[in-house]
């Protein structure tokens, strides 16, 4: 086969699966590609950064910790926002995404992020900004931003693995859990050992709920439908199994469990808090990646 012939074959049957494949295309369950493959990887990262930034902001409200809300605000808007823009085909038209809040989840998300940006800034610069009204409004906005990524996925009826009812609780608890871990590290860095120790009770609680939600998601998706079951199988078998076992099994569950047990009762240590945070961040990325990567459509015929 000469080079030209090879090129022709690659053009007709590109590796991204977009070519003619009459015996395969939508005959069997077909994987979602747009929001995870190639440039779609930006969306995975954008959802992640929006979530952890809002999570940090949310937890900082309970401790009236200004550096926490500043960092959370910046992560959400700069990292989350910029990466969102990098994903878009026409980022200059991004303002148009404000146009359909009545139907589109994406549009609602942009509105929420816009309001969060303005009110968050006001809270940062206002002396006594940590009052009950401000905290309540910002808390609600943070929860909406945390769940925005998975909420956008959750409304896609065509992908059963995303329309699971556990997707939203999982998203919210993971944002709170990761945000809590970030805040605990910030307190550890600022030398507030007592606060770090006191936060450990909540760390154990959030971690337990997080593990429960991961388990419920896997169990619920497995029992939802045959196509949803394929998504879980894709996580456990084939190319993605390493990410599942190492990313979820070890980094999201096992290592944080070990660190939590070591620090049980509040005997915290800055280095262990850092290690647990690193592990939790990697684990959360892995979970998000798997959920986005393994979603499959029903075959058409």
């Amino acid at each position, binding site marked *: 086969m000469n080079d030209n012939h090879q090129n022709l074959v690659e*053009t007709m049957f590109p590796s991204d699966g977009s070519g003619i494949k*009459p*015996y395969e295309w939508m005959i069997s369950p077909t994987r979602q590609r747009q*929001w995870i493959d190639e440039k779609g990887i930006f969306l995975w990262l954008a959802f992640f950064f929006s979530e952890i930034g809002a999570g940090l902001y949310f937890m900082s409200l309970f401790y009236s910790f200004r550096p926490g809300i500043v960092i959370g605000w910046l992560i959400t808007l700069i990292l989350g926002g910029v990466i969102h823009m990098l994903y878009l085909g026409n980022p200059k038209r991004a303002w*148009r995404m404000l146009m359909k809040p009545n139907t589109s989840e*994406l549009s609602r998300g942009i509105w929420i992020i816009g309001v969060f940006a303005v009110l968050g800034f006001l809270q940062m610069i206002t002396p006594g900004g940590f009052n009950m009204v401000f905290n309540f409004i910002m808390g609600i906005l943070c929860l909406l931003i945390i769940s925005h990524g998975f909420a956008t996925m959750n409304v896609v*009826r*065509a992908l059963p693995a995303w329309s699971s009812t556990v997707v939203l609780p999982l998203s919210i608890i993971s944002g709170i859990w990761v945000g809590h871990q970030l805040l605990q590290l910030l307190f550890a860095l600022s030398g507030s050992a007592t606060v770090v120790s006191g936060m450990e009770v909540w760390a154990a609680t959030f971690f337990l709920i997080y593990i429960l939600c991961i388990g419920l998601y896997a169990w619920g998706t497995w029992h939802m439908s045959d196509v949803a079951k394929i998504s879980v199988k894709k996580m456990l078998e084939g190319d993605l199994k390493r990410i599942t076992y190492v990313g979820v099994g070890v980094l999201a569950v096992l290592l944080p469990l070990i660190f939590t047990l070591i620090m049980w009762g509040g005997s915290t240590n800055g280095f262990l808090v850092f290690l647990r945070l690193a592990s939790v961040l990697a684990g959360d990325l892995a979970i998000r990646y798997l959920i986005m990567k393994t979603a499959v459509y*029903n075959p058409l*015929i």
Partner: protein
Amino acid sequence: MPRWGMVIDVKRCIACWGCTIACKEEHFLPPGVFFNRVLIGETGKFPTSSKLIYPVLCNHCEDAACVEACPTGATYVREDGIVAIDDTKCVGCRACMVACPYQQRTYYDEKTKNREFFPGQGKTEMETIGEKLYPFKLGTVIKCNFCSERVDEGMKKGLTPGKDEDATPACVNICPVGARVFGDLDDPNSEINRLIMEKKGKQLRKEFGTEPAVYYID
């Protein structure tokens, strides 16, 4: 105002891919992009297996998932039921592609634009002309539009879509066995409605509640 729809007789279809090719010619689609496909599957096991042939295209759903997902209003349902895309509004978020249960949308990016029918030999004259005559905008989503240019132009001339070729989608015109019928779903006396009623036309993946305008009969 009519609501355009299509009936496809899967028993008549011989899987010649004429619709696929006619569509590519009509819209000057680059390599790897298809607004019309023919799905071929099998059911059962030998010796009782049977072959399934389903030509598929955008279903122009009445309650389209892509329209709901679109955050800018770039994807919308026209008064005549055709689901269209305004490429000046599309931000390229691909929410519509993810939402579509039928996977009938394509993202038009540099990679797609630069594909050549004869790789390494430059674009043919037809490809170059096509890019001028039927330009797609980079970073936007494209899909079947029921040949709305033909339908609109034909109607201006007083022609009837589904009956007069100049007002009828290219895939319907090309079909050598007459497996495709185009017409007005809102007209109780139309050929398309007669076929749906008599042969119990069914829609693909009706469970998503999208109410497709493409029906299949056998």
